[in-house]
């Protein structure tokens, strides 16, 4: 039960902007990806499921849509 999402989102956004700037990646997509991963982890903690597969898919999908620098 993560209720600290605002702060988590804020910190992740700050880091994603920095990474995005350094590597030419859109920060919004990075933030979305990382928050989805955090969400999947949170859900898995409450009720375990095939989280590895879901996160792998999330990254694979994001990698195909993100520009390659």
């Amino acid at each position, binding site marked *: *039960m993560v209720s600290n999402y605002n702060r988590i989102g804020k910190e992740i956004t700050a880091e994603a902007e920095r990474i995005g700037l350094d590597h030419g990646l859109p920060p919004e997509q990075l933030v979305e990806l990382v928050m989805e*991963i955090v969400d999947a982890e949170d859900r898995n903690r409450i009720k375990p499921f095939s989280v590895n597969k879901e996160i792998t898919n999330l990254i694979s999908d994001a990698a195909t849509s993100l520009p390659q620098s």
Partner: protein
Amino acid sequence: MLILQRIEIENFVCFDNIVVEPSSDPERPLTVIRAENGSGKTTFLRALRWGMYGDPSLPGKAASFPVHPAGWRTDTGIETGAAGIETRVAIEFTADGSSRHYADSGNSAMLYRLERTVTTKAVQASTEDDPDFRRIGERATLMFRALDGTWSHHEHGADAVIGELLPWDLRDFFVMDADEAADFVGGGSENKTISRHEVQQKTTFAISSLLGIDVFKSGHKRVESIARDFSRNATKAIGDKTLTSLDEELQETRTQRQELEAKIAQERTRQTELADRLEEVEEQLEASLRESGAHDDLQKRLSSNRVQSEDALKRHKDCAARLGGALQASELWASLAASAVNQTYAHLKPLYDQGQIPASHLPFVKGLMESGECVCGQTLLDDNEYGIKVKEQISNATDEAARAGYLAELHDAARSLRQESRDSTWNERRETDEAEFSELELKLSDLRTEKKDISIKLDAINDSNIHSIRDEQAALKQQYESCLSALGRHEDRLPDLKQQEDSLSKAITQRQRNELAAADHRACERLSRFVVEILDRAYATIEQQQVRELTERMNRLFHQMAANVSDDDFEDFLPNKATLRMISQVGVRQIEGSADKFEIFALNSRGRYMPPVQINGASRRVLALSFVLALCIESQTRAPLIADSLLNFMSGSVRRNTLRATSEHATQPILLLTGADLESPTEVETVAERAGATYTLTGQWDAIEAGSGGDVVNWTQQGQVSLLCGCGPRQYCRVCERTGQADAPGWTENPN
């Protein structure tokens, strides 16, 4: 995230049927349930927990802990096997789904209804310690109300949703009694001990869970592992050889194959040429042989000559052996002595025939001498004249007789040899053999001559161009065989080369695909590394910075409750003025040597760490409450804080400040208080100002007149139950426990 709207408790220990509707007014979020000891505060807390988590939330051995009304069996005379009694707790709450979204997702709150029921049946206890009841059919259902007002079952079920909204491990955090609150600090109590490890575990879990630190950690670890998987997959997809080397290998194989095909074509042409040439040569040879005439006949004659020669030679050899053997036989000697023997015999035979040899008269004379009388009648004695003469004659004739005997023996031998010589066939055989030998000599000579003739003729034939043709034929045959062998080798190798070429082509195609896949894997790995970095840095900020902020907020809250130091005055506050046993600073810190674990700490006015056992119970409770409130504020947790006897044993100012701070900072504080907790006008004022709902639990049921109702919110005709009246914090009515305090200062009668 979760706000309680309504709590219904039916047939739960002392509660027959009560309904509490906590305040959900953000301006007046406090709910006060006033109850004296023994009126059901703890039972209310347990009912709420049981409603949320079921049997595991019950104290001790859950199955032995009764949830049914205390007097149910004895009062009603229910026997074993009789119909049971159903206990029911229903909790209605709203949740806005904020835990699933970040940065104000704007999800509208949804109303849920969680209802847990169980039936208790009476059974025969096997021992005194065993329960005489058994609960069956416990079930929890979760419904939610859609926008159109209709109720539906939640797809994830009650336990999953409650587990997400108020996890089991945080039950002491949100639904706590005084002792459980103090467990966050440690130190235990007279009735309870708790290890430092357990305290750290509780504190760490609350911080990690609400701030999301554990999610960061597990997410970080998982994405790192996924990044490694992507890296491995990329390496695996690429393989050992580069595309260039595969291309080069293919080109080389292709060239080899083309060269081999050219060689095969060349060898086939050569094979045809050689076959043609060989055919020509064989025709030439045949013609030449025909021209040379009886080559075959000559060969046959030569062969026959060889056979005859061998036979003649064998016979010649035998014959020679026989002739050689004859020279060594005795017959040879007889033959050679025959003439001498014949001559000797011819001399001796007349003597023999005349009786001269041997000397036969001498033995006669000797006989006469021995008889003593001559044929003439004369006496022959040794001493008479005749006898002496005869004896002289005998003496003279003895040597002659010996010679005659010898000659007689010689005669006999010569006669015997002569006879033997006359009987032998040696000469005949020798002559026969000699004749045959001569014949064979002649025949062999003839055969040699014939062989020589044949050989001369054959040589004459070989000497012709047949020999060269044959040489050419042999050479051509050799070349043809060599050509066939080379062709076979080439043709055998060709499929291998073609297969190798195909394999390489496929490998290149696969390789190209793999490189694309590897590029994808590398892109995923790269992105994973970015995610790890983001999680890592964000985690570090949360773990360090936000925990520092939590500590600061907790310290302020503690001082607000302990010393009535407001946020505005906090900067000017001098720690040595702390009123709670010299505690000057509190907070949360990472445990040395175990950075991912936290504990609550308190420092005294000299800045030294105070072990929990040195902190009194009230201070520990305030400390724990400041931690709970600060953590909820920091993590923006919107959840009820249901606390039993939190203000017990607190001094007046601390109690007032704690009540005020709780009502100001908790999202939905539901405090179970005693009348003593609400003694001062300040507390009453706080409750009046902040409480959106107040209830009183009373054990004064015997004061109720049946059917009177009055201000009893939920009235029952059952005997041993707690009641809920509508009195405010400083009110009394005729059914609540304060009914006897009508004259107490500051208390007014509830007009209802």
